């Protein structure tokens, strides 16, 4: 179990972390969300000792993280980085050895991962000769080569095409099924909703929402109300609702959690014939927008 607690970090006048905490359990995938500058990257870097925290604790299996523990971690930094002139397989297996693998094991694992990520035929190319998306795959292979117990991925989906996104999602799920703990940050919230079991949203260095996806959705202070009128010309808006969008007779609102759905349905029916109606917990992207207030 990875536990980040009460993290604090300032860069001069800028507050990066202000008491944020994250808990990630074995075999589970944690989505780490927040607007730009919320402190996600700083928190992730603190797991690897790449940032000097002003306060807080970072523990793995209940103990402070030392160099030996880090050898069992895999990291995909926000700023991707590989030696541009080094050949793909040599680079991945070197990083494997750096994390304690024997030469033979590192080479075998490298071949396997490059094959799985569709880079088998690029193994002897220089990294700089690869496209951006393929470099990203090499980066993923580099963070996976030693089959880590903890995988920390900073924006793993950024810059990937839909096929790349699927491949990345598959790898993340497979590793979690194998028992690894996975934390990744992302801005693609619907994607997060589909992959993660747990979610943490931070803003200005503090946690604003956390829990399982279901907890977060059912525990949200709002509900999403969708009403579709048979006649697109109908105009309708309940008093206590915040409109999300209105399009061809389809209306979406955020309403208080404890509101009565039946009251909305009867009110809508008075305005016009209702073709479809739903009252559900909000989607992650809506929770996110409400939580960060922007």
């Amino acid at each position, binding site marked *: 179990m990875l536990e980040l607690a009460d993290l604090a970090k300032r860069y001069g006048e800028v507050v990066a972390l202000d008491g944020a905490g994250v808990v990630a359990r074995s075999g589970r995938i944690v989505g780490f969300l927040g607007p730009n500058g919320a402190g996600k990257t700083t928190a992730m*870097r603190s797991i*690897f*000792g*790449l*940032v*000097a925290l002003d306060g807080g604790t970072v523990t793995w299996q209940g103990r402070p993280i030392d*160099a*030996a523990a*880090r*050898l069992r*971690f895999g*990291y995909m*930094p926000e*700023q*991707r*980085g*590989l*030696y*541009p*002139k*080094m050949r793909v397989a*040599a680079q991945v297996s*070197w*990083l494997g*050895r*750096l*994390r*304690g693998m024997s030469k033979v094991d590192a080479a075998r694992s490298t071949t396997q991962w490059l094959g799985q990520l569709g880079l088998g035929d690029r193994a002897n190319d220089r990294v700089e000769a690869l496209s951006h998306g393929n470099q990203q795959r090499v*980066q993923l292979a*580099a963070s996976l080569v030693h089959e880590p117990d903890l995988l920390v991925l900073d924006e793993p989906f950024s810059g990937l095409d839909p096929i790349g996104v699927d491949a990345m999602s598959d790898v993340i799920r497979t590793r979690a099924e194998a028992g690894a703990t996975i934390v990744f940050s992302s801005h693609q919230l619907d994607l997060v909703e589909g992959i993660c079991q747990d979610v943490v949203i931070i803003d200005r260095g503090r946690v604003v929402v956390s829990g399982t996806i279901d907890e977060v959705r059912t525990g949200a202070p709002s509900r999403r109300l969708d009403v579709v009128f048979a006649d697109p010309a109908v105009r309708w808006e309940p008093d206590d609702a915040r409109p999300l969008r209105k399009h061809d007779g389809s209306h979406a609102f955020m309403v208080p959690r404890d509101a009565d759905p039946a009251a909305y349905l009867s009110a809508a029916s008075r305005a016009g014939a209702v073709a479809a109606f739903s009252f559900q917990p909000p989607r992650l992207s809506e929770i996110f927008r409400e939580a960060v207030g922007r």
Partner: protein
Amino acid sequence: MNSIRSTYLVAWREATERARSRAYIVSTVFTFLLVGGLIAMVAFIDRGPSSYTVAVAGATPKGLAASIDTVATASNVLVDPLFYPDALSARNAVADGTVDAAVIDDDTIVVHDRGSTVETILSTALRQARLLARLDALGVDPGAVADPGTISVVATAPPQDDSGQGMATATIVLLFLVITTYGQWVLLGVLEEKSTHVVEQVVSSTSVRSLLAGKVIGIGILGLGQLAVIIAGAVVAGSVFHAFDLPSATYATAAWSLVWFLLGFAFYAVLYAAAASLVSRSEDAQAAAMPVALFGVASYLVALSVVLPNPESTASRLISLLPPVAPIAFPARIGIGDAPVWEILLGMVITMVAIVIVVRLAARIYAGAILSGGGRMKPLQAWRASRELASR
């Protein structure tokens, strides 16, 4: 133990990746050819004493061959006499170029062109032989006349071993070049890791100290290898082409140069690494490394202009003990042959103490700066930042 393994892996990567790079192979081969070629060229231009073949025919004076030998030796040339049966064949041999000149009887010298060196030598030798023959005829012992006794020559300037001086100059230039070149490799290597952000990936699995140490060691091994190849090339080419009589201190200088390269490289490379860690863009790298580079050039100029001309002066002896100067000054002094062992050892101890201090200083700046993003950092900022990252 773990940090030793990761230091080894970093060094191994540096050495093997760079040894395979075109830059290293080309520069090694190029320098090897350059040094060997220069020596071969010197040997070609300065072929040593010229030599002549001279025909001898007819009734020449008795001591002619000995006289020719004496005069030729004094003029620093080789003259090889060949005996011909008659005057005509000797004359023809000169005409067709088989020999350079001929002496016929005791009164004729045949040359191809008038005014040549061989003409002067032969006429002097013939005159001397005739003089001795005439003295002999007068009943004087020619041996007593030919050997007038020894003459002692006293020089007012102290004896100088020119080849030692030349080797010392070459040693200073070579060590400065190699230390600076490989120091620059460290500079660019650290910059590459920072600007491509690969440092985050590497440091997440090891420590900044292992990364720094491994990089300096790996590149140092390449520098040492190249220096050894150059020195071996110079010594081999020198003895093959007989370009110079190898001074007695050659092998000692060569061995000491390798030791002092390691010390000098360690001193400068960590400073270059610290300078590079402060910047993120290659445009800023040379500016950040300027103080280190200036230090190196100043030490080089001092070694060339102060230590080399007067290696035994007090100033030279003190200056060569300074850690930045010592690695290039001491091999030169060893080449000249004037450095006492205790002074060499003292210089090494002082330099090693300085290296320990510089490594701690530079490693701390490096640790504080290498993981920082953004623009150029000041050394003091990095120093402060590193206090927080002490655990890495």
